[in-house]
C-alpha cells in the first residue's frame, strides 16, 4: 500500500512537471523588455492586442533602458524598449538595430509644494543640479534648503533631463538617487524643498511642476518644441521585424492606438510632433 502511495505521488509530481510546460500548440508570443517609462504603455497595448488576437501573447518586462538595449543587441528578446537612442548608450552596436519611435514623453522638473517658486530659468535649474544654488530663497522663494533628488545614473529619464539642463562636460552633484519615477514623486511630495524630475504622466496634485523661462510643461508646448526636455520612446528590433513582432509594432503605431491609448496613458503620439530631433538633439524639420 505504501509503495503504491509513493508511486502515485511520483506520478502526480511528474504530472505537475509535465503540465507546467503546458500545451504550446498554435500559440505565439514575443518578449518585450526595457524602459520602465514606456512599460505601462506597452503593457496596455499588449493586453489590448492579445484580446483582439486570440493565442498571441505579448510578454512585457521592465528593467530599464540599458537592459532593453543590451538584450535586443544580444538578440535575446524580440523588442527592446528605450528612452534614449541606441547610439547614445556605450557598448551597443546600433547599426544592427531598427528604431521604432512609438511615442514622445515630456519630462518636467517637479518640486514639493510650498517652496514659493513656480517658474525658473534653465540656467537656475542648471545651477541647482550642479550644487551652486542651495536655497530656495536665492530664487525668490522661501528660506528652505534645496534637496536635489536624481534618478539612478543610466536611467533614460535622467539622461534626457541632463542632456537639456546640463551643458557638455558638466556633471550633477552626487546626491540622493531613486530608481523609479513613482518613488521620486512620493519623496518629492513629502520632503520639503526637494526638486527632481519625472515624465509628464507622473505629475499629479501632490507635486508642483515648474515652468522653465515662462514655458509651462504641457503637451502642446512639447509638440512645438517650446518645451525642450522631451525624448522619444524607442522600441528597437534586431533587424527588420517579422511575424508577430511586426504585427505588434504596426498595431502600436496604428491610428487606433496612437489616437487613444497613447494619450490616455500620458504620452504624446509621434505623429503629432511638429518638430523632429536626431541623436544629437538637433532639430530636424518634419517631412
Amino acid at each position, binding site marked *: 500500500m505504501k509503495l503504491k502511495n509513493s508511486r502515485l505521488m511520483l506520478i502526480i509530481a511528474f504530472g505537475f512537471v509535465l503540465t507546467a510546460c503546458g500545451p504550446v500548440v498554435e500559440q505565439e508570443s514575443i518578449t518585450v523588455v526595457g524602459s520602465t517609462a514606456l512599460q505601462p504603455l506597452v503593457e496596455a497595448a499588449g493586453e489590448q492586442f492579445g484580446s483582439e488576437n486570440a493565442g498571441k501573447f505579448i510578454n512585457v518586462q521592465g528593467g530599464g533602458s540599458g537592459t532593453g538595449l543590451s538584450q535586443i*543587441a544580444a538578440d535575446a528578446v524580440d523588442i527592446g524598449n528605450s528612452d534614449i537612442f541606441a547610439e547614445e548608450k556605450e557598448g551597443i552596436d546600433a547599426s544592427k538595430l531598427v528604431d521604432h519611435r512609438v511615442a514622445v514623453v515630456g519630462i518636467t522638473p517637479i518640486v514639493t509644494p510650498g517652496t514659493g517658486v513656480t517658474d525658473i530659468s534653465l540656467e537656475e535649474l542648471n545651477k541647482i543640479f550642479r550644487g551652486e544654488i542651495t536655497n530656495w530663497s536665492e530664487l525668490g522663494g522661501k528660506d528652505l534648503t534645496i534637496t536635489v533628488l536624481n534618478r539612478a545614473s543610466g536611467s533614460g529619464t535622467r539622461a534626457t533631463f541632463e542632456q537639456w539642463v546640463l551643458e557638455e562636460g558638466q556633471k550633477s552633484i552626487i546626491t540622493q538617487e531613486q530608481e523609479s519615477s513613482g*518613488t521620486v514623486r512620493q*519623496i518629492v511630495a513629502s520632503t520639503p524643498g526637494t526638486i527632481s524630475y519625472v515624465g509628464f504622466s507622473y505629475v499629479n496634485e501632490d507635486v508642483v511642476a515648474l515652468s522653465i523661462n515662462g514655458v509651462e510643461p504641457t503637451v502642446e508646448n512639447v509638440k512645438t518644441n517650446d518645451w525642450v526636455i522631451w525624448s522619444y520612446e524607442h522600441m528597437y528590433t534586431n533587424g527588420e521585424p517579422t511575424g508577430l513582432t511586426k504585427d505588434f509594432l504596426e498595431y502600436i503605431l496604428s491610428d487606433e492606438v496612437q489616437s487613444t491609448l497613447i494619450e490616455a496613458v500620458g504620452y504624446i503620439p509621434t505623429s503629432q510632433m511638429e518638430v523632429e530631433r536626431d541623436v544629437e538633439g538637433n532639430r530636424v524639420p518634419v517631412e
Partner: protein
Amino acid sequence: MEEIQARLLGNSKKGRLEKLGKTISFICIAIIVLVVASILYFVTSKGLSTFFIDGISFWDFLTGSVWNPGNVGENGQPLVGALPMITGSFLVTLLSAALATPFAIGAAIFMTEISPTTGKRILQPVVELLVGIPSVVYGFIGLTVIVPFFRSIFGGTGFGIISATLVLFVMILPTVTSMAVDALNAVPRYYREASLAMGATRWQTIYKVVLRSATPGLLTAVVFGMARAFGEALAVQMVIGNAALMPTDLITPASTLTSILTMGMGNTVMGTLENNVLWSLALILMVMALFFNILTRWIGKKGAIKK
C-alpha cells in the same frame, strides 16, 4: 531453496524503490551543487573583470570614495570608489544588529523561561508573522513613517543610515528572535534544575546558566541577523537616500552595496565598465555572505560550555 535465494539476493520491489529514492536525491543534490558552483563562478568572473579587463586597481576600488562609473577622474581612471557603499553597508548592519540583539534575546527569554505559554500562544505567531511581510512593505512603511519622523526630529531630509537602521532592526528582529528561542530551548532541562536545586533564583539561573550555555547559539542568531541585514536591498534602498557619499553622520543620505547594485543593474549594458563594477559590488556581497556563513559554523564548532 533457489526461489528464496533469488528473492533475497535479487531486486525486490523495496530494493528498487530504495535505489530510485537514492537516485532522485542524488540528482537533486547534484543540481543544487551545480547551481551554487555556477553562481559562484559567474559572480566571481564578472566581478573580477573590473580589475583584469578594465584594469581598475583593486585598492582604488576598495578605498576610493567617489562613485561615478560613467565618468573619469583627474588621473584618467574611472571614478569607481566603493568605500562609501562598503561603509554604509557595514554601518547599517552593525547598528541594526546592535539594536536588535537586546530586544530579540529579551523576547526569547520571555518566551522560553518566563512565560512559555503566553510566548507560544501570542508572541511566537506574531514573530512568525513579521517574517512573512514582504520587504517592500517594510520599505514603504519606512518611507512614509520613519523618514518623516526623523525629518521632524533632526531636520534635513530624514533619509539616511538611521532610518535604514530602524527599518532593518524590525526586519531582522524576527530572525534573531526565533533563532534565539531555539538556542535557549536547546539548553538541557537538567542545567536549570541543578541550578535551581542549588538555591539560585530564577533570574540567576537565566543569567548565569541558561544564557551562558546558549551563548554560541545566540551569537549564531545575531550573525544570521547581520547576514540578512547586509543583503537586504529593497527596503534599504527606499529609505537610505542612495547618495554615494561617505557617510559623515547618521542623518544624511548614504548608500549601501545592495542599494547601488539594484539601482544600477537595469540601466547598464552587459560587458561595459559600468556593469562590471556592479558585479564587483556583488562579489563583495557574496564574499561577505560566505564570511558570515563561515563565522556561524566557527561559532557553532566552538561548542556549548567550556570547562
